[in-house]
């Protein structure tokens, strides 16, 4: 069992023990510190941060005037205006709040495919985006789905902490969860650059697997979030049930949604030909296909059509969409492609 990870209770040596294979290189971390997450919505979070909000408060950015009423702080009176108009006005400033950033990380069975695996790429991307958010004093939550099954969680034991079941499954009651669930809980509400290493360590130990219903998982997570902010969905979006239900729920909840579709090279360019019986890794459904090199072009067209349909869906709802490959260079994706897609700025 891993020791409990306090946000301030770790040092560099401990992090190396937890993260034997660092998700991100030091050079990339340094480059990421220059970026920030782009959000078109004003933060409605209660915590203070560095994002503009609709609230008026203390900052250096002038916002508006209002008439003086008894009890206002005299330090905010505009004396120049009083001199010209002979009336008292209070200067109002924009309140800077934190931006809640929700990263929805698909850890289903289908994400284990590819060389490198789609989940590995998605996890590193989540780490990088989370780090950008942490550097921007935003609150980062990585919501991994599907949730580990309590009955099959190999790490669950009598000594594990008891948590509110609703936090994980949306249901009522309390239940005892394993270390995997605890690690996933530690990925929620992370704030501050100093929490980055524990954030990386927890993220690195997430165990993928299991069947997921994309729509259900996203819909449930959207309801759990108190303050909607930026949402980044990292998934292959190849759920047989579709993706619109989950994404619609995020939009309805008021998230500023960024969708990143991650496909494996084998999904873009299949390398197995002949008379095949294809078995779905998650549902177990089988499909007979006769496939040859001569049909590659048609298959590519199908993939492009699927992606295009997804892109148009996102555009219609004001979502940002970006597709990448699991064997793509992470630096290129972050520093060039996502900036071009205006996910990062």
């Amino acid at each position, binding site marked *: 069992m891993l020791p409990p990870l306090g946000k301030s209770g770790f040092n560099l040596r401990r992090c190396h023990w937890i993260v034997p294979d660092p998700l991100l290189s030091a050079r990339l971390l340094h480059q990421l510190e220059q970026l920030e997450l782009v959000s078109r919505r004003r933060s409605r979070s209660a915590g203070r941060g560095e994002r503009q909000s609709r609230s008026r408060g203390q900052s250096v950015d002038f916002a508006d005037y209002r008439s003086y009423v008894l009890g206002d702080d005299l330090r905010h009176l505009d004396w120049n205006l009083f001199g010209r108009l002979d009336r008292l006005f209070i200067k109002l400033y924009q309140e800077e709040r934190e931006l809640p950033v929700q990263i929805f990380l698909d850890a289903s069975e289908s994400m284990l495919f590819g060389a490198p695996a789609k989940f590995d790429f998605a996890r590193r991307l989540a780490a990088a985006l989370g780090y950008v958010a942490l550097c921007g004093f935003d609150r980062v939550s990585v919501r991994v789905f599907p949730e580990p099954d309590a009955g099959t969680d190999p790490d669950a034991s009598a000594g594990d902490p008891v948590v509110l079941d609703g936090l994980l499954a949306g249901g009522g009651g309390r239940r005892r969860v394993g270390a995997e669930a605890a690690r996933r809980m530690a990925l929620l509400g992370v704030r501050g650059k100093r929490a980055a290493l524990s954030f990386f360590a927890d993220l690195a130990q997430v165990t993928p697997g299991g069947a997921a219903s994309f729509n259900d998982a996203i819909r449930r997570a959207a309801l759990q979030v108190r303050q909607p902010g930026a949402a980044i969905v990292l998934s292959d979006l190849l759920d047989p049930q579709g993706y619109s239900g989950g994404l619609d729920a995020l939009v309805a909840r008021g998230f500023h949604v960024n969708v990143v579709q991650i496909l494996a090279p084998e999904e873009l360019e299949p390398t*197995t030909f002949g008379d095949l019986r294809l*078995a779905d890794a998650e549902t177990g459904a089988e*499909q007979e296909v*006769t496939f*040859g090199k001569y049909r590659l072009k048609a298959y590519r067209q199908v993939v492009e059509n699927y992606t295009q349909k997804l892109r148009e869906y996102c555009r219609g709802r004001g979502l940002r969409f970006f597709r990448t490959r699991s064997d793509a260079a992470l630096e290129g994706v972050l520093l060039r492609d996502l900036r071009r897609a205006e996910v990062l700025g």
Partner: protein
Amino acid sequence: MKFLSLDAAWFALILPVIVIFYLLKRRRVRVRVPSTVLWQRYLAETQASAPFQKLRKNWLLFLQLLLLAFAVFALTRPYFAGQQRPSQLRVVILDASASMQSTDVEPSRFEAARREALRWVDGLKPGQLMVVLQAGPRTEVRQSATTDKAALRRALAACAVTDGVARMSEALKMAESLIRDTADAEVHLFSDGAVGSLEEFENRNLPLVFHQSGVRAGNVALASVDVRPNPENPRQRAVFVSVANLTSQSVETTVELGFEGEPLDVRPVTLPAGETVPLVFIVAQEKDGVFTVRHTAKDDLAADNEASVVSLLPAPVRALLVTKGNRFLEKALRSAGEIQLSVASTWAAGMAAAGAGADATGAAGVWDFVVFDDVAPAEWPAVNVLAVRVAATNWFEATAPVRAPSIVDWKTTHPLLRFVNLDNVAVAEAVGVKPPSWGQVIVDSTQAPLVVAGEVGRQRVVWIGFDLLSSTWPLRVSFPMFVANAVEWLNPSTRKAERLNLHAGDPLRFEVPDGVRTAEVRSPGGEWQTVSLDAGAREGVFGATDRQGQYRLRLGTNEVAVAVRAIDPAESDSAPRSEIKVGRFGGTAATTMRSANLEIWRWFAAVALAVLMFEWWYYHRRTA
């Protein structure tokens, strides 16, 4: 285009079988994939759940239907109707003479003719008969009348070209007899036109169709080769060679002479176009052997570029002249080469002088031939005979004497009349006889034969039907020449040498010693063939002399060389003829008729095979 087997269209019912093949399930490899979402969308465009669909562009289906269409089309045996007459019987005569070996068409005229004949076999309709004859030195029936195309093809394939002449009249006679009872029959002759004289078929209305092969005349031939004693020195041999240039251009070549495989002489020769150049080689000969002559010019016909001659050493000929006195004849005989001549007034006296019995067989061991000059023997000796004015014997049936017969014809091609001109010969009276069945009249008059030559059993007989002293012939130059020719012709060794020098296709006849039951003959190719001889047979015959060159005949412990040559003026002149002359006025032009009913199923079958192979490749390319 029509179809010979339209019933084969039933094979089109195989089409549903193709559909069944498409319904069969395949053995598939199970592969685990992240999601089948994309594959389902992919399949949605290539498959359908409905039982029927709009026919999509499927190359495999197209190829299979194309393959089946070609196969069914081939099975219906489509053909193009040719310019044929509805003949129920066709006699195919394939010329297998030496000139058909010419390579002016690839690979040879014979093969081109055979190909054309095969096309006609392919064009046979059901019920039509065909006969295959091979016309060479002998006419062979390769296939009797049949409708079986396979048998006809085998028969044509079994035909082989020879180095001999084409005795086309024999073949046409046979063909004529075959079609005699069939009203709508045709005789198809596949030849280059070098077929000799067909005079006897003039006005016979033979339904002959001539398919001509050959495109040019490009032959340099040995026109003649002969070995004779050197007139100036009988100890030496003179090899007379004439080389004919039958091309349209001057040719420079060399002529080589060899004896028993050893080269003796080589001479360069320039042959003007269309000219024949004679050459004489004077050589010494120490033993019996074979002279071989060849020229080295490259031409279209190789068969007549080389010729061999068996030459036997000259031996003195022993002759008996039984005469009442004829100095002209005696002197002529004595001057005719190496001859040991005895003269007697009667046959009995001659035999007595020789110490032999006066019977017929006793002369065989003493004389090589006997000359009876106006003396009738009691019995013809068992040797060669020159009889002058001897009639009323068992060989001749006498009629009334003929006064002052005028010579009207003589056979200049006969060896006895070589270089003999009888224009200025007058005869006072001749014995009247009927032309004997065993002999050939070589000098004829208006009333009676004057000179007859022939063979009675194994005896050669020359008969002169008038008294030499009652004619002007002894005073003419032609007389000693005739006597010299007669001495040579009657010399048994000459006959022996003649038997050892054959033209291709002529049968080899040989005397069989007592006790020998088999003979072996080695052909120029080196194969030995055994000839079984009947018990008591005195003469054997070997017929497979179709190729020119040296043969070896082995009889018991004796072995002799036999030379077979392909020299023949008609064959050497390999210029293709566009017309076959039939008699003086008749003729058959080369036809432009193509094979009737040209079947084209093979082409469709070949295309079907090609489509099958392409489909195989395409299928594996798809699933590779």
